[in-house]
């Protein structure tokens, strides 16, 4: 059993959860993920690690309550436990001193863009962060992102905070302003990552995205997480989850992620019903 040391709301429906997992905390590097189960009948879900404290033996996850499992995870009280967490999985981000590096997080993707921004800064890059959200209330990790950035930008779709527009527009403006950009990391919803790839492609800017295909074991066995990269089959759990954005077949990823859509809805609705039944606990 793995104890939840703390669970704090960051924004509506988004929580930062710290979990006791000493082996993982000791090993975690930017870009890696864990597989966890919330209860004994739970599914194995992949979540990218937002940070770790090797000394305290804890890792932190930033979780958006989307489906049954993530909602349940967010509802667990501090001090309670989850049965399983395994990691750190996946190949760590390739970090070097690229020169000027832009780390872009869309929505809860910022949770993953953040540790990589930290690593990029440490490696000596001039770090620019673009932290995008739909609206002001959904902006997360603003302070943290700022603290590792040489230039930090917030964008909101509705203009309620920061730059009015999408992260792609902000990135395009930076490129248009003549800034020499050597590396872009983009993490967020598939359409956002796909759009970023198209922004940087004409300029040949090395761009990396972190993919979120369906996974079951997450350790290199089941093959559920296969993605098409440069017309080849790759497995996000061991070959990724980060890939060259200009070679990823995003449409295929989006299609394949829809396979269990109706089942997920059933499960989530059943879960909501259960939560209401146990609402008094």
């Amino acid at each position, binding site marked *: 059993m793995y104890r939840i040391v703390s669970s704090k709301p960051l924004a509506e429906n988004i929580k930062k959860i710290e979990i006791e997992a000493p082996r993982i905390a000791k090993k975690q590097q930017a870009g890696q993920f864990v597989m966890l189960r919330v209860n004994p009948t*739970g599914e194995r879900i992949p979540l990218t690690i937002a940070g770790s404290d090797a000394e305290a033996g804890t890792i932190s996850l930033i979780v958006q309550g989307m489906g049954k499992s993530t909602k349940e995870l967010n509802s667990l009280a501090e001090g309670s436990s989850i049965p399983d967490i*395994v990691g750190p999985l996946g190949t760590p981000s390739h970090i070097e001193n690229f020169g000027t590096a832009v780390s872009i997080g869309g929505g809860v993707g910022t949770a993953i863009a953040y540790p990589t921004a930290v690593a990029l800064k440490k490696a000596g890059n001039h770090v620019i962060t673009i932290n995008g959200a739909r609206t002001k209330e959904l902006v997360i990790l603003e302070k943290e992102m700022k603290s590792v950035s040489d230039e930090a930008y917030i964008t909101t779709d509705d203009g309620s905070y920061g730059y009015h527009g999408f992260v792609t527009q902000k990135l395009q403006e930076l490129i248009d302003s003549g800034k020499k950009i050597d590396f872009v990391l983009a993490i967020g919803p598939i359409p956002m990552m796909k759009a970023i790839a198209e922004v940087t492609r004409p300029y040949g800017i090395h761009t990396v995205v972190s993919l979120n295909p369906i996974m*079951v074991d997450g350790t290199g*066995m089941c093959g559920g997480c296969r993605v098409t990269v440069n017309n080849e089959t790759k497995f996000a759990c061991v070959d990724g989850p980060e890939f060259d954005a200009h070679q990823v077949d995003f449409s295929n990823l989006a299609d394949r992620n829809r396979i269990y859509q109706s089942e997920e809805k059933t499960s989530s609705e059943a879960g909501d019903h259960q939560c209401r039944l146990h609402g008094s606990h």
Partner: protein
Amino acid sequence: MDAKNITNKERMAIPRQPMPAQDPTERSRNFQEVNLGYTPELAMKEALRCIQCKDPVCIKGCPVNIKIDQFILKVAEGDFLGAAKKIKEDNVLPAVCGRVCPQEDQCEKECIIGRKHEPVAIGNLERFVADWEREHGTMELPPIKAATGKKAAVIGSGPAGLSCANDLVRHGHEVVVFEALHELGGVLMYGVPEFRLPKDIVSKEIEGMKNMGVEFRTDVVVGRSVTIDELMQEEGFDAVFIGVGAGLPWFMGIPGESLVGVLAANEFLTRVNLMKAYDFPAKSDTPVFDCKGKNVAVFGGGNTAMDAVRTAKRLGADHAYIVYRRSEAEMPARVEEIHHAKEEGIEFLLLMNPLEFLGNDRHWLTGVKCIKMELGEPDDSGRRRPVPIEGSEFVLPIDMAIISIGNGSNPLIKQTTPEIETSKRDTIIVDINTMATSKDGVYAGGDIVTGGATVILAMGAGRTAAKAIHEKLMGTTAGYDEW
């Protein structure tokens, strides 16, 4: 007739006792075990068929060399617990092996009776004995030697790791087994379906090992959570056995393979077996492709393919097909699995090769274009090579395609312990007499060495490695009991 006063002629006059099984139509709609097991009467009758050869060649056919003649004699005498004890001297998982071993290619293939009649049903008897012991609550712990003060790590809790851990712990070594998944048992849990190997049985056998002192740690991916070097240098392990099993599935590399609805057998089976997706959404949060009323095709002819197609049928598939490019004679699956599959209404499309998967405008699978094949000259594997028949292409309408053509190797150990030598196929290279790898103190066995093979071969490798590890740790094999 009793076990002692019976002539060989009388023994051979007894027909092989068939394994009672669930009705095919009924079982094709449930996940309960297909075979029901021998009754004591059936088992004793079958055991009488064994002529107790002076030089029992069946034992040579067994990768872990179970003393087959001796345990069968005890069954014939009605001493079922004695028989169980005898088997357990050599095999830690008899209830599993009695169910999943390809006996027709091993012990039963060698059986002398089989030359003129049907061979003695050694597998069925093994299963009966193990089940009897478990169900009668007398699972005795085998003798354990005095503690040696040496410590071994076993990576992977599948058949190879379990058999290695078993032999090591019995010789007094401290053994810790690391498992990546949340459940113990490896392929026995995620791969082999409930209807062929009930998970409770696997758990019970593992429980027995815990009682012998083996320590199990789940949720540890060696190579990621901890490296082999750290285990040996920081955590005090004197030796390491790698039994991590097969890795990522192969795909066919034909057009349309990335359509929604095309998936690997490993994923399909893991969802159903390990994650219990057949209980979704009531008792499991893991979904599986809804097979109800659908057409499902499984590509391949091995045991995994049979497991997948029979699972699809049980999940309600209207048509569940095996598509295989050779003929039935070349199928690597156990004869019993093919037989059971046919009884359950699985449709075998033999000598057919898929060319392309076809999809709709939402990129969901709708069919597969195949070509008919005929058998030509033997190829490198000695099997007759299938050759396409020109102009015989046709489209089979399907909603789900399950690819079951084998696995590669998991790359994690190779990536994180580069000094362990691997082959071109990424399998670990070992000395087959000791299972020692190129790294001192590190041994390997099972599918990570051989590529996809059987439970019992993996167990044999685990045993070989255990003996070599013992010798390494103690400097001698004197006093090493193979029981």
